[in-house]
């Protein structure tokens, strides 16, 4: 009957009134809602080790930013997914973060390959992405407007090795690379190791790629031994760096300078190879001993927050990338993609990671790569000279002549 309907309606009004009274409380809570930064990271799968380092970098950055009062009066909060080291999964995740989870900002994933794949997504939605782990030039030369580089590009990873070789008057060089995006770019891309060597007047006598997952380098090293180069540079990841070094000893390959790229800087490299890692040069984007603003404090804070955790330049890169984004948002005074982009393009900023300055297409021009050498179980930075802590032990003695 009518009365029941009426009472129902009245109940509804009461509810609405109550909601209306409570709304202001909800409203003020809304204003305190944290800024959501979305990202997918390789927490499992092949890149898990370094992806987790990057993860800790992001976490620590968020913590420090919030301790200093947040950004635009709000705290920051990361919304993270695991892309399982797979580019395709990464693409789906960023699409989800942006269109479904509706994050305010995004940060980049681990590795050049995944960054390349997801760059199309944030580009489509005009959300600026600082990609701390993308080191391949090609990513930034495709006319994209919303992706920004933090690392030095792959092409210069062996620059230190080549420079030292040239300064010592060495004449011939050999390079090998794993046949995937990053190592291949290091050696054969324009401006890569082959070009750099030629520019310095060093003759490149041998270049060869090997498939990912290759474990036996006998044939390739036999050819190198026959070519007898003064310098040998290997664009690697971790396990191939270890395998090549080991087999060089077995096959008695003795260049005067031998360097690797990714993986040579990990403590595990020395752990696995022991004394055989001595004299090996490695390229690194960052070491905690470098005189960058806040680098020391960052390192100490990390060890305090994550005791015993693995620590590498990926941690620092993640931290710095987040630092850079936050700084850009501060300067822009808003979360608008175009405004943030404009600020990033203007920045000439020194983070814990070193210099940050990008060109119009997002390509990094200020950050410097450093080269170290394993000496007595420690990584000693030997290049470039203005950042060096020590001198290279040159030449690398032949395997048979070490005790």
């Amino acid at each position, binding site marked *: 009957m009518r009365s029941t309907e009426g009472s129902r309606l009245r109940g509804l009004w009461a509810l609405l009134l109550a909601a209306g009274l409570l709304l202001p409380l909800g409203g003020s809570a809304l204003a305190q809602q944290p800024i959501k930064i979305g990202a997918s990271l390789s927490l*499992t799968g092949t890149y898990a080790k370094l992806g987790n380092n990057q993860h800790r970098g992001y976490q620590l950055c968020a913590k420090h930013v919030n301790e200093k009062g947040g950004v635009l009066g709000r705290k920051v909060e990361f919304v993270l997914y695991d892309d399982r080291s797979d580019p395709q999964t990464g693409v789906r995740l960023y699409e989800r973060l942006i269109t479904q989870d509706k994050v305010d900002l995004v940060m980049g994933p681990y590795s050049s390959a995944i960054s390349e794949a997801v760059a199309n997504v944030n580009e489509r939605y005009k959300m600026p992405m600082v990609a701390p782990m993308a080191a391949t030039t090609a990513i930034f030369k495709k006319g994209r407007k919303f992706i920004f580089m933090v690392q030095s590009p792959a092409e210069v990873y062996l620059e230190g090795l080549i420079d030292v070789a040239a300064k010592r008057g060495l004449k011939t060089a050999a390079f090998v690379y794993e046949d995937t995006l990053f190592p291949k770019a290091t050696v054969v891309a324009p401006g890569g190791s082959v070009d750099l060597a030629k520019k310095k007047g060093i003759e490149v006598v041998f270049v*060869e790629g090997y*498939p990912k997952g290759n474990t036996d380098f006998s*044939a390739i090293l036999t*050819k190198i031994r026959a070519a007898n180069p003064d310098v040998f540079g290997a664009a690697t990841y971790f396990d191939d760096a270890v395998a090549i070094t080991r087999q060089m000893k077995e096959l008695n390959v003795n260049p005067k300078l031998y360097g690797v790229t990714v993986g040579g800087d990990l403590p595990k490299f020395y752990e*696995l190879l022991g004394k055989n890692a001595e004299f090996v040069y490695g390229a690194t984007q960052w070491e905690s001993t470098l005189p960058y603003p806040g680098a020391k404090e960052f390192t100490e804070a990390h060890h305090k927050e994550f005791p015993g955790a693995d620590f590498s330049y990926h941690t620092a890169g993640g931290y710095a990338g987040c630092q850079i984004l936050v700084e850009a948002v501060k300067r822009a005074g808003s979360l608008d993609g175009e405004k943030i982009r404009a600020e990033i393009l203007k920045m000439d900023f020194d983070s814990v990671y070193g210099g940050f300055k990008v060109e119009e297409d997002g390509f990094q021009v200020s950050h410097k790569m450093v080269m170290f050498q394993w000496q007595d179980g420690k990584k000693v930075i030997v290049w470039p000279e203005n950042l060096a802590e020590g001198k290279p032990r040159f030449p690398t003695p032949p395997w048979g002549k070490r005790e």
Partner: protein
Amino acid sequence: MTTVTGAMLAQVVVSGLLAGSLYALVALGLALIFGVMRVINIAHGTLLMLGSYATYWWFTYLGWNPYLSLPAAMGLLFLGGVHDPVDEKPLEKRAPELSSLLLTFGISISLVNLAQLAWTSDLRSVEFLTGSYLLGPVAFSKARLVGFAFALGITVLAFLFLGRTKLGKAIRATAQSREVAMVCGINVGRIHLLTFGVASALAAAGGSLVSVIVAIQPEMGQVWTFKSFLVIVLGGAGNYPGALLGGLLLGLVEQLSSLYLTTQVSEAIAYLLLVVVLLIRPTGLLGGRT
């Protein structure tokens, strides 16, 4: 391109044979499974991976010499293998290989991911034997040489087992004809399980030997599975001496093409060889069971 000298060739041939012996050992297990049970075991490489991890953990926590713990690894996987569910149900009669492929793939993917959950993808290695013996211009990697010796030894033992013992003969009989074997009073079901156990043990042995040479990580097995397939195609599925020769042949082909062409191409050549042999002589270069 560098000109190839005799010394280089010798070096590469040696490397090829050393690597090939390991391929042969592992492939023998796969050949047994296929010959006896008509099962295509995609999980074979995963068994090897488990053997590697077993050796690694025993070495790291108990300090066991990886070569001495090898029998233990074999034993462990043997026990695991005889409980395998692959043969439990009479699978699709019309496409038995589909069922076995999928089943072993399912098992493989579960085990690999469990390994990743348990041990993470961190690369590990058994640091036991490094360096090489030099014989003139040719270097023999110590770890690979010892691996070669063990691989050959175990393979020979396996042949003796198959050829001389009663159980071995029962296995070969079942491979030849399941029905006739049953008529002869052989418990075919039990033979199948036993075969799987032996094959797992062989894979584990390979894993043990390999743990000293390459990086250990959960996905390391896939490459070994593919290579084992190559070997049994080359040597003839179900042909056991064929597995040995096929393994050595594969090792040589890989290294030689790497030397004369490039290392990238050597991968392609191996697979091309697979397709070519399948088309021209599907029963393998030495002829085997079909």
